């Protein structure tokens, strides 16, 4: 008689999963504690791009604070894709949050006209940093707190503009991989066009994240999860990933640690801030 052999299922190449209900409740509690209890600013402003990250953030804020306390700011540049505006409008309609549209073309061009040799990367960074100027000013106008919308994947890959996308003081989705953001979006009821379209920073025509990065989010997330769990590159490749894609992810992470830190300050004393003088952010 041949006995059945029972073994663990083979290692999967899937990105990390998510219990969306638990996560949504947890993040809503986080936003309430952080804004209402601790900072005593029960209103949020969000740069609503028409993408899934800011949409999920808007849904979470609406759930945590009430839609009347959430201000979405659409900030198109003259070359932005028109669908970004209409997709953002779908979120406003679905959540009932407030919305303003502020065109950043004049502000961006006002500077860039003196920089005719600025390439696409520089121009994109100016747009991102201009949006942050607007967002912080709108937060002062509405007595509200800017909420960050950067996900864990782009933070790890360094795929963001330093002191722009990462500037808001509170971010509910920064520990969620992009794949998990999509799962949460489906649970929260984010309109389908935003979930199904190719993610894009929309800083250049026909730009997509995955083309910029050279890898799909699903593959990048699965590899990043291995890397963060402590698997060596060799062990990750052994699980079934291609050498080139593992190296690409590793290279991006290792070349962008600085983007995930505050500026480097020369230490001169034994009371250096954040080196010896250590106080938590909420103290």
């Amino acid at each position, binding site marked *: 008689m041949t006995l059945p052999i029972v073994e663990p299922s083979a290692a999967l190449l899937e990105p*990390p*999963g*998510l*219990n969306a209900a*638990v*996560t949504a*409740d*947890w993040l809503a*509690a*986080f936003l309430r*504690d*952080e804004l209402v*209890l*601790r900072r005593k600013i029960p209103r949020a402003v969000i740069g609503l791009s028409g993408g899934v990250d800011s949409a999920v953030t808007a849904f979470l804020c609406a759930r945590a604070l009430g839609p009347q306390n959430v201000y979405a700011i659409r900030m198109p540049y003259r070359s932005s894709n028109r669908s970004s505006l209409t997709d953002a409008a779908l979120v406003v309609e679905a959540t009932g949050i407030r919305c303003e549209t502020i065109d950043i073309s004049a502000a961006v061009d006002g500077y860039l006209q003196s920089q005719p040799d600025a390439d696409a990367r520089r121009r994109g960074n100016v747009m991102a940093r201009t949006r942050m100027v607007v967002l912080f000013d709108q937060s002062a106008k509405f007595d509200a707190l800017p909420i960050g919308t950067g996900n864990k994947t782009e933070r790890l890959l360094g795929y963001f503009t330093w002191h722009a996308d990462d500037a808001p003081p509170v971010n509910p989705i920064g520990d969620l991989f992009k794949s*998990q953001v999509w799962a949460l979006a489906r649970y929260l009821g984010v309109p389908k066009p935003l979930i199904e379209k190719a993610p894009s920073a929309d800083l250049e025509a026909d730009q997509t994240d995955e083309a910029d990065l050279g890898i799909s989010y699903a593959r990048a997330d699965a590899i990043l999860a291995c890397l963060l769990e402590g698997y060596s590159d060799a062990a990750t490749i052994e699980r079934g990933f291609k050498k080139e894609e593992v190296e690409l992810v590793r290279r991006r992470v290792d070349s962008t640690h600085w983007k995930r830190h505050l500026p480097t300050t020369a230490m001169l004393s034994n009371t250096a801030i954040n080196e*010896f*003088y*250590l*106080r*938590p*952010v*909420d*103290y």
Partner: protein
Amino acid sequence: MAEAAALRVAIVQMKPDKGQYRANLRTSGEAFAQLAADSPNLVVLPEAAMTGYFLEGAVYELAVTAQDFARDLAAAWREAGGRTADLVAGFFENDDGNYYNSAVYVHVEPRSERIVHVHRKMFLPTYGVFDEERFLSRGRHLGVFETAFGKMALLVCEDACHAISATLAAVKGARVLIVPSASPGRGIEAEGELASITQWRDTLRLAAIEHGVFVIYAGLTGFEGGKGMTGSSFIVDPRGSILVQAPATEACIIRADLDLGAIDRARATLPLLGDLAAVLPNLLLDPELPLPRGARDATDC
């Protein structure tokens, strides 16, 4: 003195304002006022109940002596209308410039209070998000102490993650384990709740079943710089049943009446503790264990 047959317990699941010791004492007093009319015998508060958990260098500004903390806690209880009761809470202790993550068990009378026991956390998590040993010293002793409700032990948070802590406490006679805790939640792939909440309940249910003890787990709640404390305070009986459990993210009170006879009945039907006590000396004296064998070795540890 004959031991009581029942123990009415309340857990005050605190959501402290970071660093606001006096304000948090007032908040605990409001909870005590809710309890005073139908007073519990024992009220348990979480680890770092009056300050919040992640303090970094601010711990040196907020740490107090055990005597001062017991006095403040007892005063809050009495001002809320509380009469005779036992109180447990976690706090940061300053003992002559040595700093500990401690918990105190105080017996409170209408006009006086008495510290029954102070436990200093032995296992200081210092990895990943945790950095306790950067700022604090370790406790070195696991005490079991007498109360009107039988012998008890205090284990602060990670102390209870090590199976041997509950084991030694039980072998030394503890019938009730009290675990003030502050556990930052993580693990979003699991069903129904964060994985770290399940892990705590599983760990302490197994301790209760193996040793035939009640376990009272008081969890801090509220977010501290993005790290959410998981609350989820619970009481587990000596057969491993969860009698009551709090939600994760809300300040609240949970309470239950414990039938202390359940300890003897559980141990009669599953006498693992007696079995363990018989063999434990052989296990601990095993020369292959990496333990100090003399005074010099012990100093080196």
